[in-house]
C-alpha cells in the first residue's frame, strides 16, 4: 500500500541516489517543455508511491551507492552516467524496479501528461470515446464460411 511511512523509510542517501538515477533516466527537455524525473514535485510524488517495491528499490539503491564507492553523488555527472550504463549492461533487469517507480510518478505529472496530449484527469467517470470502426471489413471473413470442426 502507498503511504507516507515509505517516504521516511527511504534513507536520505537512498533518496538522493534515486534522484540522481531518475535524472539520468528521464532528463528535463526544453524541446518538449517537460521537467526531468528529478523535479522536486515529481520526486515527492515518487517517494509516496513506492508501495510494494520498497524492499526491492531499497536494495538496488544500496547496490548502486556501493558500486559508486559509497555515494553515487560523490561522482561527477559523467562518471555517474557511465557507472549506471555499466550496471545496466551487466544486469538490465536490476533497474526494472527503478524504471517502474520513476515512470509511475513522472507520467502522471500534469505537465508531462499535457505534453503527450493526455488530459490530466482520472479515467472515471468521464471515460473516453473510441471510434466504432468499419464493420464492412468483416465481409471477406463471412464469405469464407465456417472454419471450425463440427465435433458434436
Amino acid at each position, binding site marked *: 500500500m502507498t503511504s507516507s511511512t515509505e517516504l521516511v523509510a527511504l534513507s536520505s542517501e537512498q533518496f538522493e541516489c534515486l534522484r540522481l538515477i531518475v535524472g539520468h533516466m528521464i532528463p528535463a527537455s526544453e*524541446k518538449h517543455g517537460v521537467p526531468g524525473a528529478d523535479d522536486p514535485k515529481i520526486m515527492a510524488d515518487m517517494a509516496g508511491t513506492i508501495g510494494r517495491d520498497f524492499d526491492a528499490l531499497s536494495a538496488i539503491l544500496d547496490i548502486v551507492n556501493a558500486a559508486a564507492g559509497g555515494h553515487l553523488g560523490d561522482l561527477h555527472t559523467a562518471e555517474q552516467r557511465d557507472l549506471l550504463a555499466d550496471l545496466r549492461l551487466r544486469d538490465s533487469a536490476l533497474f526494472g524496479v527503478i524504471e517502474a517507480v520513476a515512470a509511475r510518478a*513522472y507520467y502522471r505529472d500534469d505537465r508531462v501528461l499535457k505534453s*503527450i496530449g493526455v488530459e490530466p484527469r482520472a*479515467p472515471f467517470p468521464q471515460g473516453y470515446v473510441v471510434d466504432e470502426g468499419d464493420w464492412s471489413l*468483416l465481409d471477406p471473413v463471412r464469405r469464407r464460411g465456417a472454419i471450425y470442426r463440427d*465435433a458434436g
Partner: protein
Amino acid sequence: MNDPVDVLIIGGGASGAAVAWNLAETRMRIVCLEQGDWPQSSDYPSNGRNWESRQSEDFAISPNRRASSADYPVNDDASPIKVANFNGVGGGTVLYAGHFPRFHPSDFRVRSLDGVADDWPIDYRTLEPFYALNDRMMGIAGLAGDPAYPDKEAVMPPLPLGKTGETFGQAMNELGWHWWPCDAAINSREYEGRAPCINLGHCGHGCAQGAKSSTDITYWQEALRNRVEVRTRCRVSRIETNEDRMATGAWYFDANGEEVFQPAEIVVMACNGIGTPRILLNSASERFPDGLANSSGLVGRNLMFHPYALVRGRFDKTLDGFRGSRVFMWSMEFYETDPARGYVRGYCYQFTRGFGPVMQAINGMADGLVPWGEGHHDAYRRLFDRQAGMVSICEDLPEEINTVTLDTSLRDGNGIPAPKITYRIGENTQRMLDHSVARGTEILLKAGAQDIVTRSPLSYAGWHLLGTARMGTDPKRSVVNEWGRSHDVKNLFIVDGSVFVTSGGVNPTSTIQAIALYVSDQIKARLHDLFD
C-alpha cells in the same frame, strides 16, 4: 457451531456465483464462504489520478504482490508462469479483461480427433444451453455469425473496433485469415440495470463504471435476492467427513480469526484450479490419507495454464492508445489442428490496444524502445498511442508432472499450508508458442508496424488455472464424474476450472460458468437420488 445448511459453496467467484444463483430456486438453505470481501467500485483505480500506480498495488494481479488479508501466498518459484488471481466476491472476474470465448466443439474431443490427452465425458452440445444462459446472465457483447463457431445468439451489440481493430482487420483480410469482434463480458449498452462501457481502458483492474460483468454485480445480486447467504472474510481450511465417507461440512477461519465449523448436506468446491486442490489436499485424514477425493491420485495433477505469447508493434499513425476495452477482436485462424504446423491443437489471438502513459514508459524501457537520457522523450512520443498488438492463448495439454501440491513451510495468514506450483511448458506447447509469435509478427508487418517486440511465454499471465481435479467416467483416471460429483465422496461437487479435462485454446471463464450451471442443473434434477 453454525446451523446446518443444505448447500455449502466454497468460493464466491465465477463458478460459485453461477451455482448459487442456479440452486437458489430450490429454496434450499445455501451459504457461500468467501475468503475475500465485497469489492467496492469506488475503490477501483480508475477513480483516481494514480490509476496506473494502483494497478500494481492493491489491484495487482499477483496474489503474492497484493499480499492482502484476503490472499494466500502461492509458491510458484518452480514455474515459468506465475499465478494471477483475485480473492473476493467475484473472484477472478473482478480483474479479468472480460474476454469471453466459448470452447469449440473440437475441444471436447481431442483424443478422438488428434490422438492426444483425453476426450471429455461431455460435449459442446451438452453445454450449449448453459453457455447461452450464462451469456444472458453475464451480459455478453458480441456479433452473431462468427465462422469459427456454431451459431450462437448475440446478447448485445459488439464493442467498438476502434482504429486498432480497423488496422488489424484490414491486415487480416489481406492475409486471408479469420478475425471477428470478440464476445466480451462488457456492456455495449445498458443491460439489466448496469451502465454501458465508457472506454475507461481499465477492465483488468476493476471496472468503476460497472460495465464489465464480474459476478459480484451479476449472479450474486440475483442470488442474494433469492436468499443465498454470502459469508465474506471466511477462509476454509479443510472439509470434514464421517464414517460413511460423506462430507459433513467445512472448517473455516472467520473474520476474527476464529476457526468455526459449518455443517452441510452438500459441499460444492468453487475455488478454481489451485484453491480447490489446495483445500482437498489439506483435508487429508485417516479416512482419506492422500487428501479428499483423491483415490485416483490426480488431485493437484495435470495443472494447465494457457501459456501466452505477446507480439506488439509501433505504427506511424495514432491508434486508440489505452482508451477502450482491453478486448475487442479475436482470431481463430490457428485454432484447429493442422499437422503441417508441427504441433497438435491450437491457439487464438486476442488483439490488444495500447498502454496508458505509465505502462507505455515501463514497457518501452523494458523492451529497449525508449532509452534513458536525451533520446527518452522523442522515443516515447514515437511510441505512445501508436503501439498495438496481440497475445496468443495456447492450448496446454495435461501432463501429470505439472502439479499443485502443499508447500512444506509456506503458510497463509491463518496458518493453512500454501500451494506450491511445479510446472514446465511441454514441447507441443512450445512449438505452438513459437508458431504464434511468427504468425503474429507476420500480421504486424502486414499491418505496417515497425519496432516489433515479442515475449514468449508471458510470465505474469497465469490466470487460467485448470485440470487439477479432472472430470471423467473412470474413477481411476478422474476426480469427479461426468456431472461434477466426486467419485469418492458422494455429496462433494466441484464446479470450477479444476474439472477441465483439457484446456482448449481460449479464455476459460465462459466454459467454467457453463459447467457450473450444468452441474448445478444436474444436482437439481437428481435431488432424490443425488448420493446413490
